[in-house]
Structures are given as C-alpha cells and as structure tokens.
C-alpha cells in the first residue's frame, strides 16, 4: 500500500497548463520533497494533494482511498504554510486545538494533545499569546504544532522555512529531520532550496514546467541526473557544463578540454556503450565543482591540468576558483591553503569518475 499515490494529474488555469501528467507514489513514513524553481508547479501540486485546488484530470490516493473529489477536511492531512497562516484572532493554544475542536475531539483530549505538542516543540510558555506577539521562529513552531496536533496520515509542508533567517533555517531543518525520524510520519515537502531537498528528503521529485524531471533518492539524483536541468538545479555551486567533442583514443573514449594553459584529456568511463555513437560529435560534459580540486589531493582516476585562474571566492572551509575551459567558465572547489592569485596558473585535478555527458540538443543525459 502506498501512503500517497498521484496518478496522471493534469492541471490548467485557463489556457496555461501548469501540471502535465504527474505520477508519484511514496510509501508510509517516507519524506518526499517536491523541488524546482518558482513556477514549476510544485505548490500547485501540493495544493491539489491537499484538496485546496481541484485537478483538471487525474487521481489522488491517500492510503487505500481515492481522495480526488474530497474536500481538504476529509483527506486526513495537515499542512504547514510558508506564511504559517496562524489565525490572528486566536491564541496559540486555540490555533493548535482549532482543528481538533472542529473534528469534535473531546475537550480533555484536546488539552492533552496541545500539551504534548507544545512540549515536543518547546512552546509551552507561548500557549496564551497571540500570533502577533511571536517571533518568526516561534510562529513557525506553532504552525508545526498545529499540524502535529492533528496526527494526520500525511503532513504537507509548503516552503515552511523560507521566511526564516539563515541560522534559524539550519536549526529548524535539523529539528525537522529529527522530528521526522522520531514520529516516522509521511511527509510531502515543497521547497525551492536544493540543500533542504538534499538534507531532508528520502525521495526527491525535481519539477520543471509542470513535469517531474526526475524522481528518486537524493544521492541518486545528485550523482546521476537525468538531464541538464536536474544536474544544474541540485548542488551549489551548480554543476559545470563544458561543451566538448567525444573522441576515440587508445585509452578509450574521452574528450579534450582546451584551457588557457594547455589541453586536458578527460576519459569518459560511464555509459561507454551509448557514447560510442557520439564519437566525433559535440556533447556537454557535466562536472561538479567538488570534482575539480587542487591536484595533489587526488588519487585514482585523476587527470591533472594546469589552468589559468580568473576569479577566486573564499567561502570559509574551502575556496571556489574560476577558470576557463573550452570557452566556458568552470568553477573548482579547492582548499584555501593551496590557493593562488588571480591571473596565475594552478594545477587542478579532475575526478573523472563522476562525469556525466549530455546531448546538447535535448539536454538529456546520454545513457
């Protein structure tokens, strides 16, 4: 049995189609992330799961029952909103118990639940305040509390952390992860933040233009992106895309990268079967910045090239340097200690084991 199954969901507003056939299924206790740039349809999809909007066609199942035509209140879900949407005229206690009250849960049980949730989220001493008297982080907790109190079969989160400042966001992220592991609930979580997606999710659905581009566990998506969009969307700084021509050499398939200070040979070791057809043709090579580092560190399948450095950015733990290969800016992640000056050359090591090749016309990965 799936905890949530979305079958062929389409949605259009007037002439514009915002969801074009969505199919997703997750198991109970899984944490699904819907991620994508704004306008990709992820929030609409979440609203359709919640029943706040009706799908134009398709089916939604929660647990064993179809909920496509049910109103939100009959779907057994809880939702946390980006703006928290706390009821301004009610105290925190009332906010949390409102859903229970409407469902005619006995008074005593309501009190107990509010207490339990408040303890869990450490908001006991806020219970009698009004939302206007709370800080952003406190409001966020109350919003979570309101969802937790209901103990639904699915939690829906709509960018719940995006209104918090950076530090608080990291804290809350960790807390949510821990909470999820503790209560083992099923979650659908919308975000445009790829770090949240990577850290929180059991499964990620990367969306663009109303289509799920790729669906799978975070690490799989990270390492084996299906297309250039997914590859570029996850990871920060994002993956380097370098145009190159596939060549057949004695040591196998590979490509040459032309830099300011010399030629670097990149052997292509994945999907060689498929790549054979591309010999002599142009492809786009995807290399993540952390796969290009200062030379001495690496072992194994490493190619070393000397590159001219055009830009240097320090992030603290490491440094990002920009060089130019095949007339494209390429970012490398290096240790600050081995840093050189702008304009100088530096020996960089390329970990070629993770390189992905894309069809420049379709932007699909060549597999």
């Amino acid at each position: 049995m799936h905890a949530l199954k979305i079958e062929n969901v389409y949605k259009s507003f007037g002439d514009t189609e915002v969801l074009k056939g969505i199919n997703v299924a997750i198991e109970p206790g899984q944490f699904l992330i819907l991620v994508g740039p704004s306008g990709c349809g992820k929030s609409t999809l979440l609203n359709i799961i919640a029943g706040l909007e009706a799908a134009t066609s398709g089916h939604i199942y929660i647990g064993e029952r179809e909920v496509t035509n049910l109103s939100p209140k009959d779907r057994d879900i809880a939702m946390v909103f980006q703006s928290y949407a706390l009821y301004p005229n009610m105290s925190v206690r009332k906010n949390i118990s409102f859903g229970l009250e409407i469902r005619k849960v006995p008074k005593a049980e309501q009190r107990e639940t509010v207490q339990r949730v408040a303890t869990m989220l450490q908001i006991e001493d806020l219970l009698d305040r009004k939302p206007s008297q709370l800080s952003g982080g406190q409001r966020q907790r109350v919003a979570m509390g309101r969802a937790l109190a209901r103990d639904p079969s699915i939690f829906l989160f709509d960018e719940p952390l995006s209104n918090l400042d950076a530090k608080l966001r990291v804290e809350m992220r960790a807390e949510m992860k821990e909470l999820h592991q503790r209560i083992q609930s099923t979650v659908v979580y919308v975000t445009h933040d790829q770090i949240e997606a990577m850290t929180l999710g059991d499964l990620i659905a990367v969306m663009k233009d109303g289509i799920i581009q790729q669906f799978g566990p975070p690490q799989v998506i990270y390492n084996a992106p299906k297309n250039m969009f997914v590859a570029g969307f996850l990871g920060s700084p994002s993956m380097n895309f370098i145009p190159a021509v596939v060549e057949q050499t004695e040591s196998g398939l590979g490509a040459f990268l032309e830099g300011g200070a010399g030629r670097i040979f990149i052997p292509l070791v994945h999907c060689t079967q498929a790549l054979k057809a591309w010999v002599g043709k142009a492809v786009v090579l995807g290399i993540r910045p952390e796969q290009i580092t200062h030379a001495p560190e690496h072992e194994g399948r490493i190619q070393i090239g000397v590159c001219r450095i055009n830009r240097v950015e320090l992030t603290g733990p490491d440094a990002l340097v920009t060089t130019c290969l095949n007339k494209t800016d390429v970012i490398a992640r290096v240790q600050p200690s081995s840093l050189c000056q702008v304009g100088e050359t530096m020996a960089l090591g390329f970990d070629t084991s993770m390189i992905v090749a894309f069809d420049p016309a379709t932007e699909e990965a060549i597999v």
Partner: protein
Amino acid sequence: MNKAVGRQHRAGRLFIYGCLLLVAVYYLVPLFVMIMTSLKPLDEIRTGSLLGLPLNPTLEAWRVAWGSACTGVSCEGLKGYFWNSVFMVVPAVVISTMIGAFNGYVLTQWRFRGSDVLFGALLLGCFIPFQVVLLPMARTLGFLGISGSVAGLVFVHVIYGVAFTTLFFRNFYVNIPRELTNAARIDGAGFWLIFFRIVLPLSPPIIVVSVIWQFTQIWNDFLFGVVYSAGNQQPITVALNNLVNTSTGVKQYNVDMAAAIIAALPTLVVYVVSGKYFVRGLTAGSVKG
C-alpha cells in the same frame, strides 16, 4: 543653526494650525447658522443677522418640530417618522452589510471563474441613476407584493447598497492571505465555519466603515423613501420635506432648521462617535484598490 530650524519649525506649525482652523470654520459655519436659527424666535430671524447669536434663545422651535409641526393632515411633528426611519434603516443596514461581507469573502477567498467580471459589473451598477429604476422597481415591488411597505423599502435599499458594501469588504478581505483560509480548510473548517470563526473576527474595522456608510446613505435617502413608502410609514426625510416645503403659509425657518437638525441627528451622532473607528477602518484596508 538650531535656532533657525526651531523658528522654521514654529512657522510651519503655525501654518498648519492656521490652515486647519480656517478650514474648520468653513465646515462649521452652516451648522452654526442652522443651530442659531433654530434657537431664535421667528421675528428675530426676519430682522437680525444670519450669523448673530440669538437674543432670546428658545427651544420652542425644537419642540414644535419634534411634536407638533404639520407634515400633512396630521400635525404631530417628526417623532413618529423618526421611528419609521429607524425601523427601515436598521434591517437595511444589517442585511446589506451582511451580504456585502459574504460577497467580499467569496470574491477574495473563494474566487471562481467569472467572479471578477461579476464584481466589475456590480461596481459599474452603482452608477446607475436611481431615477432610472423608480418605475421598473415599482412594478417589481408590486409584483412581489411588498410595494408601499417597510419591507419593500428595505429591499430596495439593500439591493442598491450591496454594490458599495461588497466593494468595501472585498477590498478589505483581499488583504487576508489565502493561506489563512486554506489552513482553516485543512483544519477541517468549511465555508461558513471559516467565515464566522476566522474571517469575521478580523472584520470589525470594515464593518464599522460599511455600517456608517450604509446608515448615512439610507437614513438620508429621500427619493426611494418618498416613492416606495406608503402614507403612515414614510421615513423622516419625507416628513422633513413635507414640513419644510410649504406651499402656503408662513415659512417657520426656526422650525425648519430644528427639524433639519433632528433629521440629521442620528447620522451626526454616528459620525461623531465612530469617526475614529471610521478612519481606522479605512486604514485597515478598504482604501487599497
């Protein structure tokens, strides 16, 4: 330097207060004249200055206007009509405000295809000259069997007041985030529960605006009042008109003025008492396009 700034500041203040007071006089003169006139005996009005204080102030005119001025074959003043107006205004204001609130709620939180067009059409509708609707409305009221009754009058006022109350509430509710009502829907609340438990508790500022506006409009209305009310149910404006518009006989200006003030008293009180909330209510969102 500091001194110069201080002097400039003081001059600025002086300018502000000067302007405000001057304009206040412009606003107050007509009221002053009305009150003074109502307190003067008739011969003093004929001889004295319009703006002069009464030499022998008397409340006689007020007494006459309230209790014994002629408004037809009966000479019982305005007191009966006063209550006619109250019985008409209260339901009309309550109903039109309620409908306006429901409409505003739907138009912002439960939009559907065509709801904006409907709103635009409704807004355009408030520009229809009321003279145009007199006859067709009369026929409709006759058809519904409520012509010449308080119910009919309330009906008319509600219909032509809804456009404005809807405008007020819509512009207010547009600022309530959709997420709030969505959260309530997820929590299990339906259309009405959300309205009464979430939206309505946020509404007092705009309710004040709507009530003041409707109250003034309906209380002061003459045209509908005169056309759609039957003899003994006429609202106070019609009685005032009968009292002031003498076709024969000596014009009793003091009584006219006292009557005019009596007729305007409830709305004046409403404005004075709730003026503060009125501006607050407007601030809270009704003026945002």
